[in-house]
């Protein structure tokens, strides 16, 4: 009888110490503690401040372009011959992904706190671009840390950030991916505590980041829930999203968590397969540990050293996952499955040809799972998938892998 009792609501977390069950928390150096306590205090106030919420909503409408459409993918549905497939079109947002939802929210917090400099980490460069964008819009200098490997494979986004006035600092430590960029951003923050706001790009890190990023991204799920009720008169049977750090996924999942009939599926990067270390499936193949301020599932060895992982998609190339996902997995409310590089690439092409939408490689992972599941479902069942970003940034990577001339 060791099973944890199911909570009354799956949407009440985290507790005041930032815990989702055993996950989350505040595992940071003392230098940063006063800062994250300040941020928490400011967030509590902003959350309940109608003026803050009004500004957020106004920028959502006029700057981001919200609400994003919920689109019935008719030809894909027909092609797969099963459940009806809807896309939540986050790729139509300003800057081309869901990342901007969080950046607009956090830059307003930075402004409230009187900070004058923004730092961010980025993997695919989508968060870096979104950060550079809001920094330009609000007149902040912005430094983006990006792994050297990612600088190379996401070159178009590096150029966009520079155009927007951000300084992009390549990080050569480790494999030069998102984890290393995050370490370097934390080092910058510890050094520049007085004036600097750390704009974390995913629903991970020390409390209150996982909570506030989730809250800013939950607009995705709130809209999707209303839109599907409007379109179909009922809730979907399944909601699917790709999981890197987990922000687009928790954003669409959270408003559905207490709808018992809605199955929740997170898709991790299976890379080249789960046997070795060439994947980023933290939940499927990792173990609980502590990194970057929170306890969560991590790719690590028996000595607690963090492993580097691999994914064709820079945005999923992270050895951890947001703590709320770890909790949702442990209590069984959500299911997490891996999708291999090649399956994501196939899905990328299917969508391009059938629907005329070039998806980013991150949501292509979610799409690959949809392609597996939809045919096994009844035609009156409904899947909502978060199409978190557009694929313009990935065309060079895809061309190289498919051996196509540009």
């Amino acid at each position: 009888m060791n099973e944890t009792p199911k909570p009354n609501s799956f949407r009440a977390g985290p507790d005041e110490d930032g815990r989702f069950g055993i996950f989350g928390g505040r595992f940071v150096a003392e230098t940063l503690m006063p800062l994250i306590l300040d941020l928490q205090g400011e967030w509590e106030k902003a959350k309940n401040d109608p003026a803050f919420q009004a500004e957020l909503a106004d920028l959502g409408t006029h700057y981001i372009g919200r609400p994003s459409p919920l689109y019935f993918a008719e030809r894909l549905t027909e092609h797969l011959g099963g459940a009806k497939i809807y896309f939540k079109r986050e790729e139509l947002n300003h800057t081309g992904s869901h990342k901007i939802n969080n950046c607009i929210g956090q830059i307003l917090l930075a402004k409230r706190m009187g900070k004058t400099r923004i730092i961010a980490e980025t993997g695919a460069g989508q968060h870096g671009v979104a950060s550079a964008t809001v920094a330009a819009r609000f007149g902040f200098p912005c430094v983006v840390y990006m792994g050297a490997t990612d600088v190379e494979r996401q070159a178009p986004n590096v150029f966009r950030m520079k155009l927007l006035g951000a300084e992009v600092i390549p990080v050569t430590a480790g494999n030069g991916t998102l984890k290393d960029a995050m370490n370097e951003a934390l080092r910058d923050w510890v050094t520049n505590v007085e004036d600097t706001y750390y704009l974390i790009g995913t629903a991970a890190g020390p409390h209150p980041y996982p909570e506030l990023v989730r809250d800013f991204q939950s607009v995705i799920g709130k809209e999707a829930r209303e839109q599907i009720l409007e379109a179909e008169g009922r809730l979907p049977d399944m909601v699917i999203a790709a999981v890197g750090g987990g922000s687009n996924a928790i954003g669409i999942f959270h408003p559905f968590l207490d709808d018992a009939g809605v199955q929740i599926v997170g898709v991790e990067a299976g890379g080249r397969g789960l046997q070795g270390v060439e994947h980023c499936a933290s939940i499927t193949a990792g173990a609980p540990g502590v990194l970057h301020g929170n306890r969560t599932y991590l790719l690590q060895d028996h000595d607690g050293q963090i492993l580097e992982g691999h994914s064709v998609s820079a945005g999923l190339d992270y050895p951890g996952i947001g703590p709320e996902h770890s909790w949702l997995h442990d209590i069984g409310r959500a299911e997490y499955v891996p999708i291999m590089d090649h399956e994501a690439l196939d899905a990328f092409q299917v969508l391009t040809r059938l629907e005329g939408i070039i998806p980013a490689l991150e949501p292509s992972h979610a799409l690959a799972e949809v392609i597996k599941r939809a045919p096994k479902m009844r035609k009156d069942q409904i899947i909502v998938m978060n199409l978190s970003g557009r694929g313009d940034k990935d065309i060079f990577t895809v061309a190289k892998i498919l051996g196509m001339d540009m």
Partner: protein
Amino acid sequence: MTVRMDKRFAAVKAEGRPALVTYFMGGDPDFDTSLGIMKALPGAGSDIIELGMPFSDPMADGPAVQMAGQRALKSGQTLSKTLDLAAKFRETDNDTPIVMMGYYNPIYVYGVDKFLDDAIAAGIDGLIVVDLPPEMDDELCIPALAKGINFIRLATPTTDDKRLPTVLKNTSGFVYYVSMNGITGSALPDPSLIAGAVKRIKGHTDLPVCVGFGVKTADHAKAIGASADGVVVGTAIVQQIAGSLTKDGKAGPDTVASVVTLVRGLATGVRAARLVAAE
């Protein structure tokens, strides 16, 4: 709390000088060389040893300590081997306090209870775990104190008077004052600012206050030691090791000797500290 730690601070105080606390990374560049370094430290004038536990993602460390950790991990160092290092050292030295310093994840994965038992068996006197602030005391601090191991906390320039009592509440052994907002290996700030901070902390606690981050030379040690109960040197030692290695990163012919030379100089610095203060 542990006898070794209190005795050592009392002895140093009786000599009218601050303690020299030396940090190196366990297993850098390999187990045997690093054991050689550890054994040589007390003779060179180190009063307390900080034994670094390598971690793949040292978020509060600069490049020198990061690379030391990478070298150690590459040579096969693990937490269990770092405990072995301490145990081997204890075979010939039962007086010098050993403080293990690092990040939480390897300890968490090892298992907190097992780690504490093994640390006691290896003769460890204290722990510094960078990513465990007071808000996380239930994880390791409380269990460590219950078993008689010191939990040494970092206080920083951002730890204001309002927060200091929280930070000091479960701290034992000594307080480690981080001289600046930043990572290890940064430049040393103005010693008079540091003296002010040490005084501020001493207004809240009777524990010895040691200062680290940025101390690299005998002159630094002398200047900081004028106000602090101890001076911590890390990056300079780690860089000395790095500079002594062969091209392929293996131990050089005088890796141990070059550390000894550096530490001797630093020891002269701390011994001169109070003479200056008295002037």
